[in-house]
């Protein structure tokens, strides 16, 4: 499958392009502005409480997905452990609040750090095993965490979980009001997006891609592939930790079931559906998977079946994710409209990272 994807990628990109600059193209900037404006305008469209709270969850999920896109999209290592990592962040926040009275902001760096360390631990098996085998290992780790949390007694609140205080007020803004929570989450989501973009376009991002493309060749050039694989996981763990901290304070009650393997599978579906190597892929994936059953009024059991089918369909039909597919469709239309030659150097609307 991976090879088919590569060949398909290549045939589109075979047109010689001028030297690619670090700065995004005009179309990418316009698209970014549209997304930015759309996200910020959403609460003013009177979406209603339910949709707005879904949007907050979507934003928090997207933060985790942007982290996940670093090892998966850039280094090419797929992990199903992200719900668990988010759980490390969330439980750290809840325990720090209960035992030390820390608020969301004070707990955030610690949550991020704890999740990053856990991510390093989750990533260790990737040095020995790869592909599906590694993905399954991380899924199992997630389930183990869920069992540990359920049996953690008073420390983790066992099956009923832990409660958290409200986020509170910053500079006179009551962040617990849902529309304000939304803006807070949107801000963190955009920061994650920017961070992931910068990482992908840095020398470090290139190093990770060299691991994805050819580990043996990368090693011969002096790339410590093991270190960078675990490093990429730890970096993505920071995102998951921040997401967990925000989620804990958004829900104000967390329980082990939120952080099991099933949630991780949804995350994987979102990232793959959206496209892990595109700027807007993780956000698009989170939105589609969260809102589609709502909009189409599919009942929860049916939607699970639909997700399973969707995952298979994405892997088979859209290996680069929907954003990449939309980008290709756009290019094809542009080519027909402007004639074949005009496509040279035209901006990629999917604003691919690589």
């Amino acid at each position, binding site marked *: 499958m991976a090879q088919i994807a590569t060949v398909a990628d*290549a045939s589109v990109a075979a047109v010689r392009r001028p030297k690619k600059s670090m700065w995004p193209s005009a179309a990418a900037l316009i698209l970014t502005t549209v997304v930015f404006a759309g996200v910020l305008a959403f609460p003013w469209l009177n979406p209603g409480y339910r949709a707005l709270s879904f949007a907050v969850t979507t934003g928090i999920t997207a933060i985790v997905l942007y982290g996940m896109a670093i090892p998966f999209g850039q280094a090419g290592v797929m992990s199903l452990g992200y719900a668990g990592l988010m759980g490390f962040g969330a439980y750290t926040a809840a325990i720090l609040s209960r035992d030390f009275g820390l608020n969301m902001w004070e707990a955030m760096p610690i949550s991020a750090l704890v999740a990053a360390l856990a991510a390093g631990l989750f990533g260790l098996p990737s040095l020995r095993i790869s592909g599906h085998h590694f993905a399954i290992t991380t899924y199992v780790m997630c389930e183990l965490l869920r069992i540990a949390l359920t049996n953690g007694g008073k420390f983790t609140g066992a099956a009923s979980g832990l409660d958290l205080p409200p986020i509170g007020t910053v500079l006179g803004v009551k962040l617990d009001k849902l529309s304000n929570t939304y803006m807070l989450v949107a801000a963190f989501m955009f920061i994650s997006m920017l961070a992931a973009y910068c990482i992908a376009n840095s020398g470090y991002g*290139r190093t990770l891609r060299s691991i994805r493309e050819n580990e*043996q060749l*990368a090693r011969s050039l002096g790339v410590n592939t093991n270190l960078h694989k675990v490093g990429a996981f730890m970096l993505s763990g920071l995102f998951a930790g921040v997401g967990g901290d925000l989620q804990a304070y958004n829900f104000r009650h967390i329980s082990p079931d939120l952080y099991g393997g099933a949630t991780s599978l949804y995350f994987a579906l979102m990232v793959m559906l959206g496209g892990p190597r595109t700027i807007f892929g993780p956000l698009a994936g989170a939105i589609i998977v969260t809102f589609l059953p709502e909009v189409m009024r599919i009942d929860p059991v049916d939607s699970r079946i639909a997700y399973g089918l969707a995952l298979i369909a994405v892997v088979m039909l859209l290996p680069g994710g929907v954003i990449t597919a939309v980008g290709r469709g756009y290019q094809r239309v542009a080519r027909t409209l402007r004639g074949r030659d005009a496509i040279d150097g035209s901006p990629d609307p999917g604003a691919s990272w690589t």
Partner: protein
Amino acid sequence: MATLEIKGLRKTFGGVVALAGVDVTIQSDEILGVIGPNGSGKTTLFNTVCGVYRPTSGTIRWNGVDIAGKPAYLIGRLGLGRTFQQAMSFPALTVRENVQIAIEHGSRREDDAGPRWSSPEELLEFVGLEAFAGEVTSVMPFGNLRRLGVAVALGGRPAQLLLDEPAAGLNEGESVQLVHLLRRAHELGVGICIIDHHVGLMAELCARLVVLHFGNKIADGPVDEVLNDPKVIEVYLGGEE
């Protein structure tokens, strides 16, 4: 000048003896060829030197430092570059990004050995791939892919380059270009050690030849001498005629 000193190098895979105690000294001021029938241990020699395999026994010294059994990435960082038998690249990336990755890692080295490249373009021009900078490597013709392999290895700023059959699959014209490219790389101070089956090419390019047979070194010396050695003719050259 850099020196790679291999002594008593032995590598076995289960019961199979791939290298049965090989002694070779490679100086970076020479162009050395390694020939031998299939299965004689040529690639195993490179892979063991470069840290892909851990030697069963024996020593490998690179500028006096013992590198036997060290991980591949550390050996790459010490200025020992290599290419692979299968033409390798980072397939989904552009030609430019391929060499950029190599240069970025090569330039992190602290020693002064090996050629310095100010930009990916400079290196691509050196190997004659500047026109393909924006192309994705998975759609490149095979000859260019071979040349890109050499470019990526050179980007890593090697003092000594080990090339594993770089001319395999190339046509006559491409082979000539490759010989020319390797000569120019050698003029930049890169030691060249090359495995190939094309005896004509080896005779033209190399000053010295080493012949392996069933994991043993059976000849080592100036090209003319080695190619006229009755033992070499019997096990290798004779078999082809």
